[in-house]
């Protein structure tokens, strides 16, 4: 489903956000980035990041301490 996958497991704030931003930068509008994170703070942070930047948080789920986010790039 995702066009690109970013493994941010084991990284702490703010690296998952910074790496996600970098990945999104190289993608075209409408494409979907999947981010995997083990940082519990990433739940609030990816929501805030998407609200502020206009990228769409399509889906998020947690399993075994790993949060997976699907983000659709704006534009």
């Amino acid at each position, binding site marked *: 489903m995702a066009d690109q996958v970013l493994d941010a497991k*084991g*990284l*702490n*704030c*703010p*690296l998952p*956000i*910074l790496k*996600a*931003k970098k990945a999104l930068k190289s993608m075209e509008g409408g494409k979907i980035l999947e981010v995997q994170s083990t*940082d519990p703070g990433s739940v609030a942070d990816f929501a805030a*990041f998407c609200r*502020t*930047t206009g990228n769409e948080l399509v889906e998020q789920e947690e399993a075994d301490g790993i949060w997976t986010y699907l983000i659709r790039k704006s534009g």
Partner: protein
Amino acid sequence: MSNVTEMGIPAQKPGVDPNTMSIIVTKGSLDWAYPPFILATTAAAMGLEVTMFFTFYGLPLLMKDMSLQVTSLGNTAMKMPMGGIHMGMPNLVSALPGVDAMASKMMKNLIKKKGVASIPELRELAVEADVRMIACQMTLDLFEYSKDDMIEGVEIGGAATYIEVATQSHINLFI
């Protein structure tokens, strides 16, 4: 009155782009280097235009060669996790030669273990994200640093330079 909320607080500074932030960086120890670089890189990632103004002890954070240290001296809130408990350090012990070096090493190990970015890494990301960095000319003179000691792309400026930035920034922080 359209841009004033019920509380009388301006919702937005008139004529100022809301996606702008400035940070005055005044501290250069290993721990205090984190807040400005974390906020600057994250704000840039969220589409803000960011300016950092480095003054006094914040200036060493612009040096090519950063040897950052942390001290437990006088820092009563600094308690390191050790085997399930949190250990503080009495000031008398903190003052001994070598203790700062030891505490700094412990902190760096912890940072690595927990997947926290290093300061050189965060600074690199800030440069990549086009964060504008201004070094305080007076501090350079005072502590006898040269522009050549600093990383590339750093601008030199003074109080007026910062104030101009601040008047054009929606968020202004002092760290």
